[in-house]
């Protein structure tokens, strides 16, 4: 049909030669894919953040418009007063954030190694805490609605996985924290970075956008034999849903 006629193809085959089939090795495929998807997720989150800024900027404008409408109505130019527009926008701006990002009713820490010094949360009035600190780790709200997880250099205390999971929930992050490498395969594996103090640092979006599971390994090297004590944080897919895993991509020629 649309294919080049066979004689023509054969002639082109005579005229042009190709190298043997170049194959993208599976490890490179996975690496490139991981970086690509990480980038998408980040871009999508950035665009959400920009939208949120727009909403915030729109709030006073909408309020002003509403007031103007009320004034106009009072002056006899209009018969209705749609003032709810402004209030609704303001409300949305205030509630923008982790409104649906998992449980957040967990109480203060009360057990586990990290609770040698109870976690201290600095709450925002009417919202979730912006910082939680323990001897073993710190959680901090970052710009763009990200939560920075800092696991202190080993030696300052071993984080209690269950407690870290609870504290993440208090910050609005729906995650599963465990010891050892998870048996399932998430779409994304990420290694936490080391800062100059030797602390492990990773940042996760508080509200998980799209359905992309991610597992962060707080270990120096993912390729080494997994240490059973390795701390693993798996971020959920949809708000309120349990973290899920996805199969490895199939090999293709």
């Amino acid at each position, binding site marked *: 049909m649309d294919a080049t006629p066979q004689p*023509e193809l054969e002639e082109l085959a005579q005229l042009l*030669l190709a*190298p043997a089939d170049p194959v993208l090795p599976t490890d490179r495929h996975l690496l490139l894919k991981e970086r690509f998807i990480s980038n998408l997720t980040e871009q999508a989150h950035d665009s959400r953040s920009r939208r949120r800024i727009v909403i915030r900027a729109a709030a006073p404008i909408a309020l002003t418009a509403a007031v103007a409408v009320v004034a106009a109505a009072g002056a006899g130019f209009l018969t209705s007063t749609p003032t709810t527009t402004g209030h609704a926008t303001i409300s949305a701006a205030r509630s923008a954030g982790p409104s649906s990002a998992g449980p957040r009713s967990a109480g203060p820490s009360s057990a586990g190694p990290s609770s040698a010094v109870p976690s201290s949360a600095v709450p925002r009035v009417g919202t979730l805490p912006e910082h939680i600190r323990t001897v073993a780790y710190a959680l901090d709200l970052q710009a763009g609605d990200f939560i920075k997880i800092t696991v202190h250099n080993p030696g300052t205390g071993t984080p209690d996985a269950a407690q870290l999971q609870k504290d993440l929930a208090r910050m609005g992050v729906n995650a599963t924290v465990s010891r050892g490498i998870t048996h399932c395969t998430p779409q994304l594996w990420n290694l936490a970075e080391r800062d100059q103090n030797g602390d492990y640092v990773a940042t996760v979006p508080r509200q998980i956008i799209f359905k992309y599971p991610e597992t962060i390994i707080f270990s120096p090297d993912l390729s080494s034999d997994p240490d059973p004590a390795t701390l693993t944080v798996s971020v959920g897919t949809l708000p309120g849903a349990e973290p899920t895993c996805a199969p490895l991509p199939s090999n293709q020629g």
Partner: protein
Amino acid sequence: MELSLRARLQAGDPVAFGQIFDEHARAVYRYAVRVTGDWAEAEDVVSLTYLEAWRLRKRLRPDAGSVRPWLLGIATNVLRNTRRAARRHQKAMTRLPPRRVVPDFADELVGRMADTELLAAARVALTRLRPAEREVLALCVWAALEHAEVAEALGVPVGTVRSRLSRARRRLRQLTDDELGRTSKTRQREPGCGQLTGDGSPADDSIEEKI
């Protein structure tokens, strides 16, 4: 109702993008190696192609059918001007894993050396073609797309694809006594336009603008 793959891509669903990466990244890589003649650079082309696909997702036509022509069309644009694409995605590209420049196995290395010869020979011939003819030839012969798919990839009518391919064939025929002709007859071939194989020579502008 379940959305089609194209609809999910248009909506910016990363899972759908992960799926087309798994399904087509190797084809894009194969095409890029043949066009650039550079295994490591072809990895960058793959990354840039998918980043561009994400950027241009709203332009994806909703019709059914494989997205491979769409991806290879984007890859062709990336190859035309790799530097511009790299600049557009500079932030993402700085995070790419280091290129794998050394093959893992000796056999692969030997194969690459032979392939490099082939690539160089075909390249010489292809530089004598117009960029538009090369692109059609590359997509047809090396990426094994049919005429309609090449037309979709390049955004041109099917008739244009046929005429460009025909011109390219005539031109190449004239070159059979040149470097390509002497080298190629002893080499093995691959399937092409729909079934041929080839090496890969970049479009003129793509060679000039390599990163």
